[in-house]
């Protein structure tokens, strides 16, 4: 299978979007095979991601060129059929086409991000599900823990304890192979942390009003 993969890789080298074609074919071939390693599967998904990005870029260029040509054609048609002095209409047309081009670019970027995001999630899930050593590469809320170091001790303690509990429950769920539950736990804890922030603000407000004793 590995030799076949490299053969396909060699064969499709000269095709423009070879990466996408190659990896799609590769994925089709391995879909029913358990002999292919996880590393290769992830490599294939990464290649698809890059391939889709290339396809996205190409289609965006096509859309932009189409808009430009249609706009140019309409502009020429307009200049031929109308008399001089109606510059306001020309400006309006130019503005409209500029807007359409910008919108198409933004839409392309948005769709690209969504597709790449979905593929990243699939890749991450595959990594967790088929990883032989079952070691977490990055525990949840690692970034939040780094940010918490910048906060005052009172708030930092709260966040650290919450993250500690979250990780404990997360690992419990993962050890029972309940991946969805693990993700829900992370989401619940993030909501809980938002609620904590609300409580901190309310405590501060109570301190100001005088309902709670002031702390040094």
């Amino acid at each position, binding site marked *: 299978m590995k030799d076949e993969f490299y053969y396909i890789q060699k064969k499709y080298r000269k095709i423009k979007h070879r990466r996408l074609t190659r990896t799609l074919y590769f994925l089709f071939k391995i879909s029913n095979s358990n002999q292919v390693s996880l590393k290769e599967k992830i490599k294939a998904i990464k290649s698809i991601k890059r391939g889709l990005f290339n396809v996205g870029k190409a289609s965006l260029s096509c859309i932009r060129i189409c808009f430009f040509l249609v706009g140019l054609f309409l502009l020429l048609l307009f200049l031929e059929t109308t008399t001089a002095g109606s510059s306001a209409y020309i400006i309006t047309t130019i503005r409209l086409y500029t807007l359409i081009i910008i919108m198409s670019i933004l839409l392309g970027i948005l769709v690209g991000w969504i597709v790449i995001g979905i593929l990243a999630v699939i890749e991450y899930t595959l990594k967790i599900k088929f990883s032989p050593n079952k070691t977490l590469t990055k525990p949840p809320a690692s970034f939040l823990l780094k940010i918490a170091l910048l906060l005052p001790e009172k708030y930092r303690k*709260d966040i650290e304890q919450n993250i500690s509990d979250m990780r404990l429950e997360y690992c419990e769920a993962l050890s029972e192979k309940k991946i969805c539950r693990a993700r829900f736990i992370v989401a619940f804890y993030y909501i809980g942390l*938002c609620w904590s922030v609300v409580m901190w603000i309310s405590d501060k407000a109570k301190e100001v009003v005088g309902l709670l004793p002031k702390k040094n």
Partner: protein
Amino acid sequence: MLLSKTEALILQIMSENGFREVYGLELLKLSNGGIKRGTIYTTLQRMEDKGFVVSRQEEKPDDVSGIPRRLYEITGTGQRALQAYELIVINTVVA
């Protein structure tokens, strides 16, 4: 000193468990959904400021990694506050 419903529930759980040291997640599980995730540590911090509970960091073995847990224990003030709260609740129900 004012005692909220959640604070009273936490003190109640602590007293029902023989006044031993408990950690946040344990309290959460013992409350059977009475306390929400995320709010527990803020409430415990508030109670610590009021003097109802005391906390200390758990000593963990060298081979165990991760964030150390905090253990919470009810104080004498906490016990008296709980007794007063229960008296008020009983009187309100009887009346």
